């Protein structure tokens, strides 16, 4: 609601008689365009298929990718933040209980309709684990609409294809310290030396050991998706 007192009454500047004709201004404008017309060396157009423009890799918003963490697993935790933030409603996620002990959820399905997408980058902003990113790849083509709906495997493949030119940032906010760094410092406070505490502690340690084993069993080494 704009209040009346907030409205500024703006007077147009008073013009001189010559200016009132607008002809000088018009001619001035036309001079400018004429100059451009014959400044042949200034051509800015990139002859696309032959020439390609250099992009700012960090900022360009092209095809999405789904990042892998250091173990090669999909980094996404299926929190739906991207699909919630998406103004075009082009992200469709189905969450499932993750096979890895260090996180709760992972995406069973992760589809992005690249035709619906407006490449605003809100998904990237919304992602709490920096799992979804937009790559500098803009040459996405397809013959059918279905082809333009990228699934999890395709998005991971985009990551594999672009990880050289745009390496993955380390996530800075995450509830899961192990998902980002190879060996995040894990300090548990052992409050006292009672047997019970020690047991609990050992049990938790055991958990993570089991987790490592499970990871190995899932083939979660680098290169493998681990979610298959």
């Amino acid at each position, binding site marked *: 609601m704009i209040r*009346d007192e907030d*409205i500024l009454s703006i007077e147009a500047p*008073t013009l001189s008689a010559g200016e*009132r004709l607008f002809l000088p201004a018009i001619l001035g*404008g036309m001079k400018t365009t*004429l100059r*451009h*017309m014959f400044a042949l060396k200034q051509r800015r157009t990139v002859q696309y298929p032959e020439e390609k423009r250099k992009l700012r890799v960090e900022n360009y918003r092209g095809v999405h990718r789904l990042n892998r963490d250091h173990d090669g697993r999909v980094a996404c935790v299926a929190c739906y933040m991207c699909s919630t933030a998406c103004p075009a409603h082009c992200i469709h996620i189905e969450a499932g209980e993750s096979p890895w002990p260090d996180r709760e959820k992972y995406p069973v399905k992760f589809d992005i309709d690249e035709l619906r997408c407006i490449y605003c980058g809100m998904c990237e902003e919304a992602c709490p684990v920096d799992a979804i990113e937009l790559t500098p790849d803009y040459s996405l083509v397809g013959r059918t609409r279905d082809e333009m709906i990228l699934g999890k495997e395709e998005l991971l493949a985009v990551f594999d294809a672009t990880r050289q030119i745009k390496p993955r940032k380390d996530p800075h906010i995450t509830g899961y310290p192990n998902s980002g760094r190879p060996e995040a410092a894990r300090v548990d406070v052992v409050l006292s030396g009672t047997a019970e505490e020690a047991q609990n502690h050992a049990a938790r340690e055991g958990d993570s050991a089991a987790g490592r084993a499970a990871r190995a069993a899932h083939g979660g080494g680098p290169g493998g998706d681990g979610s298959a």
Partner: protein
Amino acid sequence: MKDFLVTQFGFSLVLAALVFAVIQGAVAYCIYYERKIAAWTQDRYGPNRAGPLGLLQPIADGLKFVFKEDYIPGHVDKVLFVLAPGIMFVVCGIGFLILPWGGQLDASTIPWLGSHLQPGERMLSVQVVSLNVGILYLLAVMSMSVYGVVLGGWSSNNKYSFYGAMRACAQMLAYEIPMGLTILVVVLTMGTLRLEEIAAEQAASGVWNVFRHPLAALILFITALAEANRAPFDLAEAEQELVGGYHTEYGALKFGLFFLGEYASMITTSALVVVLFLGGWHVWFVPALTMEATSIWAVLAKMTVMAGKVAILIFVYMWVRWSLPRFRFDQLMRLAWKSLVPMSLGLFAAAAGLLYFGLHRSIPACLAVNAVVLAGAVAVASRGRTPITGRQANLRRRTDMNDVSLAEVRT
């Protein structure tokens, strides 16, 4: 048959067919030309893929128009929907009939065809029709082009089309008046309605009308822009507001006809300006381009010169289009009714006065009259306050009322 072709009627037929064909081709290349100019203005290359320098682009475009599905939406008035582009095309296409392309032609100089004639035996007018109301014919034809736009807009049964049509209609009606008046200035100066005579007169005296009536020439050029619905007067198809204006619903060949119509009328109006003000086919100090040179080669040279002048004018059209922003509708109307009509009226009255005193051919007198009219316009314009338009006027009002009583306004 051989003789028929060198009679005026036969020659006119041939010329009509020739000019019509050339104009259609020229229209296609106008589009190419326009795209190139647009590109250059914006530091781009423009079409450069189809053929060398993209020269085949118009053909590709034309083929595209032809091969697209000719779709008629279900909600339109079918008869008028089909009729409208036809009207547009025909009306814009028949204006060139009275344009003089090259003065007189001595039929005997035509190789082979005129070999049986004596030199000077039969002089042909390089013009399709010579009418004694020539300019009136042109005006009449131009006034009919409104129908194409209006019917196209209305029959589309789409509010954007309809708005576009209404705007085009009002615009054309408004700009026809200054256009007619400036033409009358020339008519008064030249004392004839026949275009070929106007052109010949300028060639004979070597004084183009633009040197006598530069202001009238400018006004005619501006109104010609408006009549052809060209930027900055392309309100009828303002994409930002009206999607595509009156031809929103059109596609394929029918849209192509509208397109052709627009460019054809550009050519016609440019030619009109050239004939009325720029000496038609005349260029100084070139022997081939005088009244007396009537050989076929001279005529061809004249026609080339004429075409060149038209091409330059069309370049200006396009240059203007890619330089200037579009008028708002009220500005457009204000320009017509409050600037162009009074100025052209003044010029017309002054020209009549000059005619009364026999000074109508005098360059200084004419220039003085033009200067006076321009000065008068400037004086009138600078007298008033800057018009406050649109929103600002509302603002003024709001704040004024604020002072009185805000409560009253709110209740």
